[in-house]
């Protein structure tokens, strides 16, 4: 179904999923799981930031509404860190309000998806983000 073309130029990439809902992590994980990526998970903002610093993932799928540090907080940290200049961020939001989306884009998110989202859509976005 999905055409994957390992270019050889690309090393095995790491994708971090940060969401406090286990079912969402499972869904995202199941959607993007492939030989191309190493998928790691974080259950809240603080853990997400710690793992970003440790693993320097190529892509972060960030839930906005997380207890403690929100996805937007983590996004701002990522964008403020020069070491993470190549890290892509896709926001997952359950808030329909445009203000959140705006805030996220201003903060430097590469894309956003509103829950509920189509897994295929997500996969497209992930591929896009990683091929830029």
């Amino acid at each position, binding site marked *: 179904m999905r055409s994957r073309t390992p270019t050889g130029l690309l090393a095995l990439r790491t994708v971090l999923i940060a969401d406090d809902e286990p079912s969402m992590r499972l*869904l995202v994980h199941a959607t993007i799981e492939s030989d191309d990526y190493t998928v790691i998970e974080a259950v809240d903002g603080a853990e997400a930031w710690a793992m970003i610093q440790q693993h320097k993932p190529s892509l972060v799928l960030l839930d906005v509404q997380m207890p403690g540090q929100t996805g937007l907080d983590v996004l701002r940290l990522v964008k403020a860190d020069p070491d993470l200049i190549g890290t892509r961020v896709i926001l997952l939001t359950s808030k329909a309000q445009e203000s959140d989306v705006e805030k996220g884009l201003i903060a430097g998110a590469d894309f956003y998806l509103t829950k509920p989202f189509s897994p295929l859509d997500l996969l497209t976005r992930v591929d896009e983000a990683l091929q830029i």
Partner: protein
Amino acid sequence: MAVNGRQRGMADPPRRHGWSLRSYIALFMAVLLGVAGLAAFSVRLMSEQDARQAAIADANFAARAASTQIANDLVLLQETTAKLAANPQIAAVLAAPAGACSLSFSPAGHLDVINRDGTVKCSSQARPSGPVYEAVAWLPAALLGPVTAGPFLDPVSGNVSAVVASPVAGGLGTVVAIIFMAPLGAGLASALGGARHLEFLVTTQDGEAVLTRSSNPDRWVGAPLTGTSFGSTSGPVRRTDLDGTNRLYGWSMVDATGWTVFAGADEASALSSAYLSANRFLVIILAGVAAMSLVVVVVYRRVAEPVRRLSLVMRGSAPGSALGIVGTGAREVTDLAEDFDHLMATVKRELAERLNSEQEAVVSERNYRTLFEGHPQPMWLYDMETLAFLEVNDAAVQRYGYSRDEFLAMKITEIRPEQDVPKLLEVIGQPLPAFDKTGPWRHRLKDGNSVQVLITSHAVTFGDHVARFVLAEDLTESERLELELHQSQARAESAAELSRAKDEMVSMVSHEMRTPLASIVGFTELLVTREVTAVQRKEYLGVMLQEGHRLTALINDFLDLRRIEGGHLTMRFAPADISALLKRALDLFSDPAHAPIETNFEADLPLVRADGDSIFRVIANLVSNARKYSPGGGAIVVGAKVNDGMVEVSVRDEGLGIPLESLNHLFHKFYRVDTADRRTIKGTGLGLAISKNIVEAHGGKISAFSKGLGKGSTFVFTIPTVRDQAHTGDVLVVEDDSGFARLLEAELAARGLSSVWAADAETAEHLMTTNGARAVVLDLLLPGLSGEAFLQRLRKRHGPGVPVVIVTLKDIDAAASLVLQKAGVTAVLRKGPGMAEAAANLIVKSLVPELVAT
């Protein structure tokens, strides 16, 4: 008035209890002077007596000494004369016809050698010629032997004398010593008289004449004592001497001559020294008395006088401060005065304050009464318990047409049209806000017309009544329209408010719903679009199912909450047995995997006024939370007790606890405590919000307590008890379906029968015991205790007299039917359309015999 009375009291003369301090001091002084006088007198008397006795003792001693001396002198003279007489020269002189010789003799008197015819042959003085001693009485005896004699008048000197003679051997003559008596007294006085001024008086043996005196030695010597006090030795010690001086005498005899020697002490001089010492003593006493008087005066001035002044000040007779009036008193008194000033200042201040506040209270009461009475709009107060009027104002009397007395005999329901009464009772039956504005209501005037009014009311305490103050505003047509306009505006405003809140809600709910929805949609899409393994499919479908349930629960909770908040969920309040309710709720949690839930119910809990299903839900929510948030187990204790007119239900666990900052938010919608250890615990975040709404709709309160994370938590809610236990109905409706119960009540009410509803058999039992009922409509399918069991107990406790109609969905076989018939059931109806009406008719019929009988 009280103040005036007090002032009158202060002007009253002080009551006399006993003597004044002045009198006591006067008495003290009198006694002191008396005792001092007595002491002075007795000292004087005693020293007088002492002086007298000493003088007498001196006199006696001196008299004895004097007589001894005289006797000794006579013996000495006897020896001297005897020695001379034995001298041969003396014999020679006597033998010679003439011749000169001389003798020496020192005492007053003379020593003579006398021959037989009384001629002095030899003398210590110039020798008289001739037989001068021829006639003396003692001569013959003196020629024969030693003689001591006297007194006699010495013919040579003419002095009263005594003679001591010793004969010269051969009868030639005698040697005589003539002693003049007169100087003897002076001699005795100088030798023995001492400083005592003793008088010595020597008298003859027969007491007839004075031989010698130490004072005025020349007078009285030789004179007879007849007529004086010295006639004899017998007689008083105190005698007047020959010169008229009072003396105290002692006396003694000279044995050789028989003379009596008197020694007399001058009484006046003896006493004068005694008086001197007595007077000294008197001076000391006087000085002492004077000192005491001084002390008394000082004490009086420093204590009694200030106390008297203080008393004057206290009585109000003297103006000014007590300390100023009292002046320089003893420290205790000035302290007392100061204390009194302080006390008076306080009393005056408080009196003034009280007077002020009383006046203010009177004035303000008058003002308020004027406000109330004179207010142009009808106002009244009614008792919340009895609904009776407590006070009405003039405007109400005028507007409604009832007199004040008629008003006060009525209840507020009586001024409403009958059809409005149930609505009124429902409104009043709910917990009213402290301040309330409602309307329009219809009120009935005495003349039968009715008016539309707007009611403004607030809760007040009137005497010991819990009352409500009501202002009734008449609505004219234009006002009514205005009101409606206002209300519609208000509605519009509140609608805007509501819509804002709704928007917020929608956004929150959409967020809460999107998460499970995202899982369901996402996994569905994966399943539809991808080839998945059987294991994956099962996993995905499991998640979808779980999230689907979650979504369902969320929607249910949310809709419930909306219904409760919006007032759409009608609560059916009825008396309920809270412990039965609790036990039924806890049965849900009797899961063998968990430790049983402990209970701690107070005995004999009163019935509560509750919507059983809602309270059941609250209990279930709290207990389920307690178990959910105790992942490590631990005891869960559910308690119920009476506290301040409410039943207080508590659910305590030893679980994760609640951080302090979260306690305030717990009951907010969608709020969930966020700590790592509870991420995996599922919940909609609405349970407590629903519980809070339910409890508050009951007029109770719910709150949460926790000592912090890991220390467990306690949730407590209160629920009002059934206040009016005496409220009784004709028919007890035991039915867990509130809708059918309501239907039954309506049917019964239509037949003039009141009813009380019990949602379970336990409550029904409680009500039968406390209130009783004339008939029972009973469902058999009841939560907890079954209808059959209730019936058996009813018969056992209250006998067969109460008619029971059974209306139930339960299938009843022949055996069960027989049991019911035995229990004296009037009828068994199968629940369905029209059955409420049928049951009501049966009840009426079953009560007819009773009605006839009464």
